[in-house]
């Protein structure tokens, strides 16, 4: 007779696992990676692969050095690497990207205890560290209109043109068209330009119930609303509308709102908390974009809100059903 296994109830388990959650996030970013390949060519795909592989490698090695159980199988390192890759310009030298991955995986994630223990989003910190260390390389943009695989004149990134992202261009003359913003035929980071691809991925995550729609809606909505009001005071209602739409579609907002501000580990756990988080991110992004010296504020906004997340969590605890107020201590 074989031994029976004894374990506490429940004796059945749902199908979702950590690995599957991460796999869904990877799948949701496939359209964006494809768009990136089309827009910026094979070197873009090479750079993305470099980030993913080096992130997995760093996680693998750190776990060995720390003598902890191996965790690359949960795919979270691959997700971090991919999201960081989508946040860097196509022309960034590969070794800088690797440094970014090192910061993200080793310093931000593993030194705090690995998956679930880090207080800040590793990809966000990785990007910010790169921005502060290699400011000019991180703001050198390639215009896919002239440099893509389908362009017969394409000859690599040697002649990168340093043009501004849509956010820093002067209004209204040099701005990108809405079509450019939707399909990504404009300058920007590897994965932030093609709004359509990002939205497909974001909606996929919402339908699969991997992320809650609350954060992205609150985040993008707040940026849109504030930009609208700002636009009106500047130049009337029509301009307000245009300005809001432009702000919502450009820069890293959609990428950040759907894929970074929804990171489970570093954002509030209840829906109420997520709402506060999203609005906070939107507010900070708007302020930095409008009044700050950096053209883009999404990463900083997310990082700042990551830091206050434990406090948001504390104020948005749920009230248990049937709980009665505790009697005051005598």
């Amino acid at each position, binding site marked *: 007779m*074989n031994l029976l296994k*004894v*374990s506490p109830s429940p004796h059945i388990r*749902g199908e979702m696992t950590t690995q599957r*959650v991460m796999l869904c996030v990877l799948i949701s970013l496939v359209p964006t990676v494809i768009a990136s390949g089309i827009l910026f060519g094979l070197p873009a795909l090479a750079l993305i692969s470099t980030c993913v592989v080096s992130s997995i490698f760093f996680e693998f090695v750190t776990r060995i050095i720390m003598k902890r159980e191996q965790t690359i199988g949960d795919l979270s390192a691959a997700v971090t690497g991919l999201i960081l890759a989508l946040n860097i310009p196509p022309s960034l030298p590969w070794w800088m990207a690797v440094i970014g991955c090192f910061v993200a995986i080793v310093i931000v994630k593993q030194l705090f205890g690995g998956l679930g223990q880090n207080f800040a989003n590793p990809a966000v910190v990785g990007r910010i560290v790169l921005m502060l260390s290699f400011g000019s390389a991180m703001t050198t943009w390639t215009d896919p209109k002239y440099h893509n695989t389908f362009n017969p004149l394409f000859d690599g990134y040697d002649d990168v043109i340093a043009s501004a992202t849509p956010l820093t261009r002067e209004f209204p003359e040099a701005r990108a068209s809405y079509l450019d913003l939707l399909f990504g035929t404009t300058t920007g980071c590897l994965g932030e330009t093609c709004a359509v691809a990002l939205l497909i991925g974001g909606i996929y995550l919402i339908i699969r119930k991997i992320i*809650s729609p609350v954060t992205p809606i609150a985040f993008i909505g707040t940026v849109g609303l504030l930009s609208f009001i700002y636009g009106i005071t500047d130049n009337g209602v029509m301009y307000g509308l245009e300005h809001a739409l432009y702000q919502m579609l450009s820069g890293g907002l959609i990428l950040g709102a759907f894929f970074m501000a929804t990171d489970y580990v570093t954002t509030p756990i209840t829906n109420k908390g997520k709402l506060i988080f999203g609005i906070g991110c939107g507010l900070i992004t708007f302020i930095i974009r409008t009044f700050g010296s950096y053209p883009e504020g999404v990463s900083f906004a997310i990082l700042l809100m990551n830091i206050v997340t434990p406090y948001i969590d504390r104020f948005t*605890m*749920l009230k248990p059903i049937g709980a*009665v107020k505790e009697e005051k201590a005598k």
Partner: protein
Amino acid sequence: MRKIKGIHLKHNKNTASCQTEKFPIPKEVLIPMNMNMGANSEPVVKVGDHVNIGDKIGDSNAFLSVPVHTGVSGTVKEITEIHAVNGKCKAIRIETDEQQTVSKNIKPPVINNRDDFVKALRESGLTGLGGAGFPTHIKHNPSVPIDILVINAAECEPYITSDHRQMLEDSDAVIGGIKLVMKHLNIPQAVIGIEGNKPDAIKLLQDKTKSDSNITVKKLPSVYPQGAEKILVFNLTGRLIKEKQLPSDQGVIVMNVSTAAYIHTYAKTGMPLTERRITVDGDLIKKPCNLFVKIGTPVSEILEYAGCDMEKLRKLIMGGTMMGMCAYDINTVISKSNNAVLAFKKTAEKKMTNCIRCGRCIKACPLNLMPTELEKAYYRKDSTTLKKLRVGLCMNCGCCTYVCPAGRQLAQINQLAKNLI
């Protein structure tokens, strides 16, 4: 009306159309003395005694206790100690005889008033047949007035259909039992809550209660844990049983539908609780079925009867997949509160990772508890937070553990955490 939510599970009600069969009298039975919540009984027979069907073989003077009876006639072989799923206890082994004579003492109880009724309930050895095993006579002796009798026919656990079969096969007993309780306890109305996945039972009981304006049948959403006391009462009556309250504090008594039916049978025959209906199912069972079995029947015989592949057996659950208990070995016996025997070839464990703070456990908890926060507080041994987050309210329904992608044992941790506060 607002309802407390639940999670969707695969129902697996494979035995919903299986007419209950009478399980053959086993060669011997082993009757445990700890089948009710509360105090264990002490054997009142000696080795060598001859007993008849319905004879009392164990009893106790404790407040929270009920007597134990034998469902077979035969000779007491041994009084021994066993490890039942819910702990160590004495047990009486009885070798059955050919005749199977019914005890002469079995006659319908005389019930003229509430005291008689409550006394009869105790003498019947009845405990809740739904799972927890709370002595029924104590539930039916509340010190405050009750105005609603809630009948639990949700049967939200996957696989189990014994309550469902009870309703289909003997709805008259169900209604008879309800009326008895209403009459003797002076309860003006009753509501029967049935999950929507049993439309035939809903229809049948609705038809049968058409003429009784004070008994209503309500359809409930088929989500787990619809049959948990607090949730059932809220979803049927809108009354919320608060922390540290009993249902009676809200003017409610909750009773399982099979328990109600048994009360009717006992009042008519006087035969104590010695037999019950169980569902036998699981991926190793060739012939899923519903059976009437004698209390104390070894599970091994039941498994054999249902065509279980013993070689592959790894997991044997007494009760449901969400809240049932694992048996240590196949010689475990059927007790009063067992409503199912489920046999599986695999355990359903998941690879455990760190909590990824996905919030699924919080969304899944019907009571709005925060299992992930409770788990962290438990590992910190932080009893203040545990208290503040009301770990005491956790009903061990297992929804949180079920949904957690990181494979954390959240429900179990909550039970351990209760010892810290």
